[in-house]
Structure formats: C-alpha cells, structure tokens
C-alpha cells in the first residue's frame, strides 16, 4: 500500500501557490481579513456554507442546529450583506423529511438568496426527489444541475452524488458533461467561472471516495477560461490546490469535522473536545472584483 506516500504527494501538490496562515488550529488562506470583508468597487461578495447534516446526533456534535445557526449569525454580522449564499451539499444527514424541514427553517432565517447543490446524504433512497422538491435550482436540468450569472461571474452547480457505482467516488455522468460543454460554449474566456459540486472534483483521497471519477472531462471544457474557482464540500475541512488557472478548495462543515486524509482508520466524524469543535467548523466568504478576481477566506466559528 502506497497510500501514505501518495497522500504526502497530494499534500505537497495542495500547497502549491497558496499562502497559508493558521488561526485557531485551522489553516486558512490569506485574503481579505474575514471581518473586514467589504464589497469592492464593481464587485460583490457571497458566502458558502456546507455539510450542515441536519439530523446528525452523534458525539462529534450533539447540536448541529445550533452550530448552523452560529454560522448564519456569523454571516449576518458581516459588515456588508452578501449578495447571496451557496450551500455545497449534505444539507441533511439521512434525507429524512423532518431533516429537510429543519434545514429549510433555519437557513430561511438568514434571509439570503441561497443556491443549493446536494450531497450524497441528501439523495438516499429516492435519488434526491425530496431534496429537489425543496432546494432544486431554478431552471435546473432534469438531472438537477444548473447555471446562472451574477455580477459578471458565471456560476455552475454540478451534481456528482447520484448514479455512481462501486468505488468510483463522485460521478458527473455523460448527460451532465454534455450539458456543461454546451453551457460554457460561447462564453468569453475572460468570464470568471465558479463551479460548485459536493464531492471534490480532484483526487484528494480516492481510498475514501474523495474524488470524482470523470471530472477530467469537465476540465477539458473549462480549460479555455482564465479564472476557474471550484468550491466543494464533503470532506469537512479546508484543502486547496491551484493548478494553472484553476483553484480548487473544499470547505469546512457547520456540523462536525472529519479526519485529514489517511490519518484515521475511516473518514467518520472526528471527535474533538467541545471547546475545540467551533474552531473546526466554519463558513467561507468570497469577494469578487473585476480587477482582482475572486478571493476566498475561510472563517472558523470560533
């Protein structure tokens, strides 16, 4: 087994071209300081939350409703109201109606235009029917993927949690890839692109399914663009990689942390002392300005 060595290689890769700092034990990128986030000239700001896991009730976090609320409170306290919010999946823990209800109630309270994409925990047993009834993107394709434009940025919401097979990790599928090619066709190469998907679109740790089997094909269509930002969830921690013009970045969860790749027997919830939990959960702020592009800041809850 070369998994350890491969992971180290992967880590080295992840560090390329990124400036890190560590706050409260959580690595975060240096962008604009979190609290100082302000809409730049000609641009806008938005926020990302991920992996809220409504209905989770194990030891790693006995109250995920409260930590989601704390995340939304943090967003509400920003000096500038974000133009919108995105949720990169695993809204619920077990795709149960009451879990979707709770998520809807709490997230609605933020009073922000919110764009969701599902995680594999949202599509259990019904291929996401219940999820799409509540959180499906406006004008989404039958498979659930969609795109929209905001403030000069083209946003693409991809689905990689339905229809996958054993050991493939996430899967986009032929229909979605064809749609993506058509969606991007004719867009100017200078259009900044933000791609949202739940499972990472690059192989962080395939042994734990932290990869998307057919993502390479998607990147052939994204290649002409000068700025591509990929926002993922799924692994409940921040991992970054910059490859050419593409920046990949996974997000913290608002519910519970997971171990770093390969550091535990399995990717199950990481139990940490209560006082440490909030330092490993958080939100992401993204600021866009035509002159500077997109800047991402990961902000732990404490």
């Amino acid at each position, binding site marked *: 087994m070369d998994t350890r060595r491969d992971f180290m290689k992967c880590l080295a890769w992840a560090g390329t071209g990124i400036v890190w700092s560590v706050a409260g034990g959580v690595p975060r990128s240096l962008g604009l300081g979190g609290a100082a986030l302000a809409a730049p000239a000609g641009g806008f700001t938005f926020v990302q939350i991920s992996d809220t896991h409504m209905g989770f009730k194990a030891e790693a976090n006995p109250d995920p409703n409260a930590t989601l609320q704390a995340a939304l409170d943090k967003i509400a306290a920003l000096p500038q109201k974000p133009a919108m919010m995105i949720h990169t999946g695993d809204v619920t823990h077990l795709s149960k109606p009451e879990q979707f209800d709770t998520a809807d109630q709490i997230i609605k309270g933020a009073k922000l235009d919110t764009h969701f994409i599902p995680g*594999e*925990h949202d599509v259990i047993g019904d291929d996401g029917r219940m999820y799409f009834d509540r959180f499906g993107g406006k004008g989404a394709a039958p498979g659930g993927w969609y795109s929209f434009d905001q403030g000069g940025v083209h946003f693409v919401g991809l689905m990689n949690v339905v229809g996958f*097979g*054993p*050991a493939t990790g996430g899967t986009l599928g032929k229909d979605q890839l064809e749609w993506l090619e058509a969606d991007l066709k004719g867009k100017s190469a200078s259009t900044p692109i933000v791609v949202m998907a739940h499972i990472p679109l690059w192989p962080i740790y395939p042994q734990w*399914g932290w990869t998307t089997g057919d993502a390479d094909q998607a990147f052939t269509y994204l290649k002409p663009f000068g700025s591509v930002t990929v926002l993922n969830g799924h692994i409940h921690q921040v991992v970054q990689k910059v490859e050419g013009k593409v920046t990949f970045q996974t997000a913290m969860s608002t519910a519970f942390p997971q171990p770093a790749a390969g550091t535990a027997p*399995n*990717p*199950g919830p990481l139990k940490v002392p209560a006082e440490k939990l909030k330092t490993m959960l958080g939100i992401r702020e993204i600021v866009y300005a035509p002159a500077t592009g997109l800047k991402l800041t990961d902000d732990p809850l404490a």
Partner: protein
Amino acid sequence: MMNAIKRRAQPLAAAVMLALSLPAYADEAGQPAQIAAVQPGAVTIDNFAFAPALLIVAPGTKVTWTNKDEEPHTVVSADGGQTFKSPALDTDDKFSFTFDKPGSYKYFCSIHSHMVGTIVVK
C-alpha cells in the same frame, strides 16, 4: 478492531468447504478476496467495511446487513440499485434481501462508494 478480527476468524466449516470449491474471486484492485463467512446470511457493517466482504450463500437465503458504525451506510446493488437498495441505515439498523437466483451480486454503500462487497449465490 480486535473484535472485528475475532469475528472474522470464526468461519463455519461448511462455508469454508463451499469457498474452497469455488474459483478464486478477486476484488477491484485484483487482490485475492478474503473468503470468510461469519454465519450464512449475515453481513456486519463496521469501520466503513462490509464483513465478510464476500459471502457465499445457497439460493433462497435471506441475507441481513447490520450497521454497527456510528455513521449511516446503505446497501445498494452495483446495477444502480435495481436488484436491491436499502434506505439509510443508522447505527444498529438492519436491511434484508432474499437471494433466490444463483449468481454473483456486487454491492456498495451509496454514501461511501469505496465500501464494496459481494454476495455469491450458488
């Protein structure tokens, strides 16, 4: 972990005999699969793995999966769940399926796709 090893180390003589008469099965990575039936018809989900990963049963056997993990898992046939598909199994939840037709049935967890198993009916 010790418990898991102990559990896997109690093969039923009958299952071993059956296993020995079968051609060698290999998993996705080409490794020889571990053939270790606990009791016919029972698969335990523990530490993000199906145990035994390969279970051999006679036609008509009802196989029951039990999730011993704190994490939820599912049991979904590799044909996209057309043959069998469990709901989300929380801790200690069970799912059963009766295998009538002989054959090799691969399955996986649709939440953690790296978790794979096979039921051989013969």
